[in-house]
């Protein structure tokens, strides 16, 4: 097995492990108090103006009407049109849109290569075009063009806008430079080594079948290493916002589920109220033994 293949496996494993670890960490966090923000996308019939079931007289006696379609529509609108950026930060919208579409297309190309490899291995018909060829070549060129232009524009903006530059962290610049390097290396591979993604398809097929072939071109290797390192790093960065949105939107912003009859959250809440408190302020005097239930039943002192 070649060094490139081993590296490929390792970096991919890093990406998968890191992403799962982060998602698992959020999933395992305790129930929080309600902190919704309107409009809540699943409120049936009220989402257009941001209304809620609290507008209904004796709301707890009425059936709660929600719409999963509302949530999906809002998420898709955000993913495909970057609505919030368009409305609140219009000058950043086009660079951001180009950049994201470039990423979407390249991500889908990667998924396509995996599907194509699996189809080849298991003999699914009609997916031969995913093993490399003109379609993938055009697909890649479009994705790389959008991504490169978007990334470069975002970088220029971040460097050129004094306020934005000042509010940026070293990591913000690192991510953009790194992604630009990935796009440029991918262009190098596209132009001079693997225009029709046949090398990539073969490499992916080797990885999927656990019989990776060696001898890939240098420019392809450079692209692969830069991309692999980026993917392995990604879960530890703020760029996981692509899946974090499920939590920030669905689990926080839209989490308006009422605790009807006080039973829905009883067990969870009781466990949390029994956790020890160690906040030290005089009105709490948490000693690590007193529980939440203890401290909230005291009156404290100033």
């Amino acid at each position, binding site marked *: 097995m070649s060094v490139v293949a081993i590296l490929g496996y390792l970096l991919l494993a890093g990406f998968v492990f890191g992403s799962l670890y982060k998602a698992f960490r959020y999933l395992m966090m305790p129930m929080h108090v309600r902190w919704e923000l309107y409009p809540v996308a699943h409120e049936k019939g009220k989402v257009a103006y941001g209304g809620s079931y609290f507008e209904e007289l004796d709301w707890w006696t009425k059936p709660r009407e929600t719409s999963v379609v509302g949530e999906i529509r809002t998420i898709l609108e955000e993913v495909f049109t970057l609505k919030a950026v368009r409305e609140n930060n219009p000058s950043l919208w086009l660079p951001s849109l180009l950049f994201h579409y470039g990423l979407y297309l390249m991500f889908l190309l990667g998924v396509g290569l995996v599907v194509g490899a699996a189809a080849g291995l298991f003999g699914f018909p009609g997916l031969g075009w995913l093993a490399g060829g003109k379609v993938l070549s055009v697909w890649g060129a479009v994705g790389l063009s959008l991504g490169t232009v978007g990334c470069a524009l975002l970088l220029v903006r971040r460097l050129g806008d004094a306020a934005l530059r000042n509010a940026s962290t070293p990591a913000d610049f690192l991510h953009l430079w790194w992604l630009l390097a990935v796009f440029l290396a991918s262009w190098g591979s596209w132009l001079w080594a693997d225009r029709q993604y046949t090398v990539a398809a073969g490499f992916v097929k080797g990885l999927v079948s656990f019989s990776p072939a060696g001898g890939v071109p240098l420019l392809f290797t450079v692209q692969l290493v830069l991309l692999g390192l980026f993917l392995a790093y990604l879960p530890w960065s703020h760029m996981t916002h692509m899946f974090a949105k499920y939590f*920030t939107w669905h689990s926080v912003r839209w989490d308006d589920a009422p605790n009807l009859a006080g039973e829905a959250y009883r067990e969870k809440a009781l466990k949390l109220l029994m956790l020890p408190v160690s906040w030290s302020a005089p009105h709490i005097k948490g000693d690590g033994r007193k529980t939440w239930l203890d401290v*909230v039943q005291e009156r404290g002192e100033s």
Partner: protein
Amino acid sequence: MKPEPLIPPVNVKDISKATDTLSPIDLQRIVPLPPPYDEVDAATLWKELSADRRSEIDASLDGVSALSLKRPKDPAEEERLLKGFVAGLRKLLSKENNWTFLQPLQLTLDHCTHCQTCAEACPIFVTSGRNEVYRPSYRADVLRRLLARYGDGGNPLKSALTGPIELNWETFARLAELAYRCTLCRRCTQACPIGVDNGLISHELRKLYSQELGIAATECHANGSVLQLRVGSSTGMTPAVVRDNIEFIDDEMSEKVGFTVKTPFDKVGADVLLIHNAGEILAWPENPGAFAVIMEAAGISWTMSSDLVAYDAINYGLWYDDVQFARVALEHIKVAKKLKVKKIVIGECGHAHKALTVIADRILLGEDNVPRESALTFLEGIVNSGALKLDPSRNDFPVTLHDPCNMVRAMGIVEPQRRILRAIAPRFREMHPHGVENYCCGGGSGFAIMSPNNFANWRMLISGRIKMQQILEAFKDELDPSIPKYVCTPCSNCKGQFRDLIRAYGAWEKSRILYGGLVELIVNAMSDVPPGFLEWEFR
């Protein structure tokens, strides 16, 4: 036009610099108001702290002090405070100490891309002329960098990637103040494409200072939730005083409306327990009075409570301290159970709405989960029932509506108050933007009750200015003082802010702009009540 940024702009890492004032208020950059309010010189609203006062307290963030923090007496005290802060950082991210907000907080800490999409949504940042320290991401980034360097023993790589900053007295004091330069309106959160919640960061910072170090705004803590838990109300009113005051209000109302109005107290088995923000009873007695008139006229079975805490809907813990919050919420529920009411109706108080209806919801288990309803929804029910005879021509003057953030953006109660106004106020018009995209009054998260040092000046000049602009815009064709105008404000804290704003900008004298609640307008439209319930007097 967007002004050029300050050169050189204040950076996140500058927070630890030993400078006299990190980012002072620049009066030249404050957004202008339309005539004749352009003559209200920003300088007349502004007050610099005296050198003497500056020597006593820390105002090194922006020349303003909300907390009156005193410099530590000696290095040992400074070390104790900084150590306490680091301990608080760890507790903020621990399940045991902060399960209440851990997931939203961690998600926010992990995912900001610094795209600044939130910045223009923040009225404080924009109104100030885009003062860098008011940028919604600024305080969040200070917290991120401190966590990277000091949280859980520190992470050098993470610290290098976020940009390290030093925790010293300057950072400590400025960050504490900075947590009180945000009204927690969460407009920035609404704008964020990712769902990052910079408003929550302010909330969590306040919590850290309060729950670990006992540092909080005096008005919210010592004179707020502590006083409420001790004597029954943050106003200082004891049960006997409340009953006396309400009796006096009932007499006044009876005389005014021509029928007997009697507020029931501690009536077991009533349908409704009505809880007002007790500030109404002292500052705007016509509000609880109008509620009582409506209840009487509509034949509602209701009661107020004279038990400690339960006659005051306020719950200032919502803004700064989870423990104080829970203590007050549980007292409210305890009394509702004792009185065996069918539901609690929360009066015209935005934060009390959110506190008891939303935030407390998941800790109210079993019998504690007494149904809670907004007064706005409840009032719409009464209006729709036809129990009141209403004559909208009695409200034939320009009316606009302020949306309290806690009722609207945080609870989605948008239309009931509008449907009522459309029915009773023929000259009702909206502010822009409104509804869930409204601007905070500038007094949110406790600011309306906070006026130490020059904080009230900051409130008028910076946090409330955009709301003043909105009000003037809503009445722009009728600013003439011969036309009385009404800003309907169904929230006590917002009313406190409007009182101060209208006074500071001279809007009563210049334009006859009055503020008040929704119930006063309803009673003013009641045919069974003699005309002129609304008294056009500014106070």
